């Protein structure tokens, strides 16, 4: 079946099979920043924004994204907020294997739009679905707190 997705501000007609998940369609279309880490919607590495809200692309049928706006890291790469978030992570050395980074950054990006001066607790809760096995989370938290301090 054919659906229409606006991916990173570009409208695209995409041929999909009804059982296909958004994640697989995005990867098929070469948005390789969208990673696959699990089969059960629990790791968060596949996070993308749908109409500006973070969603797990592995758990969304592509068909149900028909007509929606999808944003991946490729789409915010030029956005100064992306630079600020990623810079904070790079400065802390919180980009270890980097596999969780795009999903995490998109979520921080969305959180930045949603919350003003989030507390440590709010940050943790907002990002709880983004697992990371390399960093132990604390360097990421240091980076994200710094980002919000600068932002405030």
């Amino acid at each position, binding site marked *: 079946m054919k659906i229409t997705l606006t991916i990173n501000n570009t409208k695209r007609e995409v041929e999909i099979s009804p059982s296909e998940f958004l994640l697989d369609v995005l990867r098929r279309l070469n948005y*390789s920043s969208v990673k696959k880490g*699990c*089969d059960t919607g629990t790791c968060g590495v596949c996070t993308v924004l749908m109409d500006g809200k973070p969603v797990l692309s592995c758990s969304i049928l592509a068909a149900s994204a028909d007509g929606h706006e999808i944003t991946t890291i490729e789409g915010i790469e030029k956005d100064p907020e992306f630079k600020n978030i990623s810079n904070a992570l790079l400065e802390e050395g919180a980009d270890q294997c*980097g596999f969780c980074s795009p999903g995490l950054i998109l979520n921080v990006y969305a959180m930045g739009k949603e919350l003003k001066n989030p507390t440590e607790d709010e940050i943790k809760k907002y990002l709880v679905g983004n697992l990371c*096995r390399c*960093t132990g989370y*604390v360097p990421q938290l240091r980076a994200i707190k710094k980002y919000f301090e600068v932002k405030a």
Partner: protein
Amino acid sequence: MKEVKSSIKKVDGIGLVSGKPVYTDDLAPKNALIVKVLRSPHAFARIKNIDTKEAESLDGVECILTYKDVPKNRFTRAGQGYPEPSPYDKYIFDEYVRYVGDEVAAVAAKDEYTAEKALKLIKVEYEVLEPVLDFEKSKGSKSIIHPEKDFQSEGFISSDPKNNIAATYEMSIGNIEEEIKKSEVVIKERFYTQAQAHVMMEPHSAYSYIDMQGRLVVVSSTQVPFHVRRILSRALDIPIKNIRVIKPRVGGGFGGKQGIHGEPYVALITLKTGKPAKIYYTRKEVFESTYTRHAMRFDITIGADKNGKINVIDVKGLSDTGAYGEHALTTFMVAGSKVLPMYNKVKAVRFGGDVVYTNHPSAGAYRGYGAIQANFAIESAMDILAHKLNIDPVKLRKINMIREKETSPIFKIMGEGREGVEMIVNSCKLDECIEKGVKKIDWENKFSSKKEGKKVKGVGMAIAMQGSGIAKIDMASATLKLNDDGSFNLLIGATDIGTGSDTILSQIAAEVLNVPTDDIIPYSSDTDITPFDTGAYASSTTYVSGNAVRIAAEKMKKEIIKAGAEYFEVSEEKVSFNGKEIIAGENKITLKKLAEILYYNENQKQLSVTGSYVGEESPPPFMAGFAEVEVDTETGKVDLINYVAVVDCGTPINPNLAKVQVEGGLAQGIGMAMYEEVIYDKNGRLLTNNLMNYKIPSRVDINKLDVELVESYEPSGPFGAKSVGEIGIDTPPAAIANAIFNAIGVRIKDLPITPEKVLKALKNKK
């Protein structure tokens, strides 16, 4: 020093955070056949018949392989040194399946949907056998997991497959019985550690194709490309020279990718069809069909005098290697060799036991590698001893632990799989680590404060050591090549698996050459292009590969001076190189200009050097870990309020990256201590085969991690550095168990420490 000891950003960081296509699956050709593996539903069975006809006739199915179509070479998937210290007990496909998830057949199809459909159409007739699911009952059980006639292992491994034993080990120093008899206080305790899953975020993945010379190219998310090449050569029966293994960015490994998993399957499909093929493990497959940590049991006896001087430590161990003997002997030996030398004042010490087969998924390498298991047992036992002696556990450590310039006879006796090497510990700030930690956690007050109420706080501690590479076995090399603009390519066989090693190795080269790290362009690793390196494991990269890079850079410096001398027509002694310019008296020339001349105008030749290194010893990093917990006595729930880790990893090359290594290790250690558990049902089926049932710590579970690096200088390391990859994981299990005891007076001796266990122990105490 300006390039090392500096927390520069990772050289590949921007590419990673912006999601560039750099991991294996991102790079796979779009037309690659999709490979899926049919896996055993039984813990132990013999395949009587496989019928693939119907599956093969499915439109879009390209090829199906079973045990009838594959080379019959026994190999081990463990990516280790050679000769291999793990038994050759695995076929690519076997007539026997030995755990739920073991490989039965592989399907290659045009897409995932077709491949999965085909899997369902394969008909397999099994003769179900009696599995061995309890590792304590494996030895001598009437079910024999490896009855095959062609079972082999190298002469230095004592495998006894008829008794389900993958390896046995025994060592002792001094008179154990005598010393126990003479000791005024003796404790005897039994501990259990569970299997743990790696849960690197990127699942195992690989793809393969045939290059224009007809060679097999395998691109893989691996920690050990050179071992993969060698193992594939053995398993597939093709010469090493006809195989090329490339490692792109790796999304985490922790030992889980120190072996081969999907590689033989894609390779065989490519060899058979001539077409590119790729495999991407589902998370379920990662859990069910790759490695876990070895579950272990330890019986510890410690004898001491009244003042806390330990005379004797006796450790009897049992390890569960699962269906195959990967890392069986070596993880077990490391359990002894990376813990016991900490207590080097003993008169007698013994370590031994069996590593047994069971019908569980295979255990393999995992950060901490035996050391964390034994650390939990021994460091818990130390706490029990301290309590019995009525001595502060910190003091007990101080009386008995190893210090700078000391040694332990164990270093020589126990290596990994073989004898070790003699070693004086030339850098050891363990005492300082303890002092600092004691202050940071406020030990004096908190340890002896009154414990009462519904929610009770307590503190506990443990010390740990690891190693830096495997002495005299594992080697590394690095090639430096001067470019015509004065920059350098650094070709390294070492594999950055998310640790930042490409960055720190570049820093080391830059420091020696006195150039900015920016001028070093690292490339790792490709068995065709980069020089040999045994890979990223055993905490070896900074130390072993780092030394190789240092040596290469020193050679390069000499080459530059030599070229400068030729250019100025003076002797080499008159020439110096300051990183920018080559100077001979009044004359100078920039490196950039010299390079240009070298490649385009005069005396034309390429400056290129290779350095290699093998550790003559394995200097241990040390750590003191302190946990503060709050236990809810009504629910048994334990909150880890704070974890203080003070680490001596020598002089860190990149303090930021070193610190994150420790923080990441701590979180995994905390996971092992409190949350993570691999659970099987009574038929050996894995219940924790997804991230919902297998709980790794999330952001809200990790409170405060307070990591400090205490600097020492390791004379044999590059710029004084030791390793830091594993040490962080080692102390949490014991420190947390000890803190719980301090809080509520109950001792949990099997991991993980769940609320149920705590509550039960509390009830039993009353």
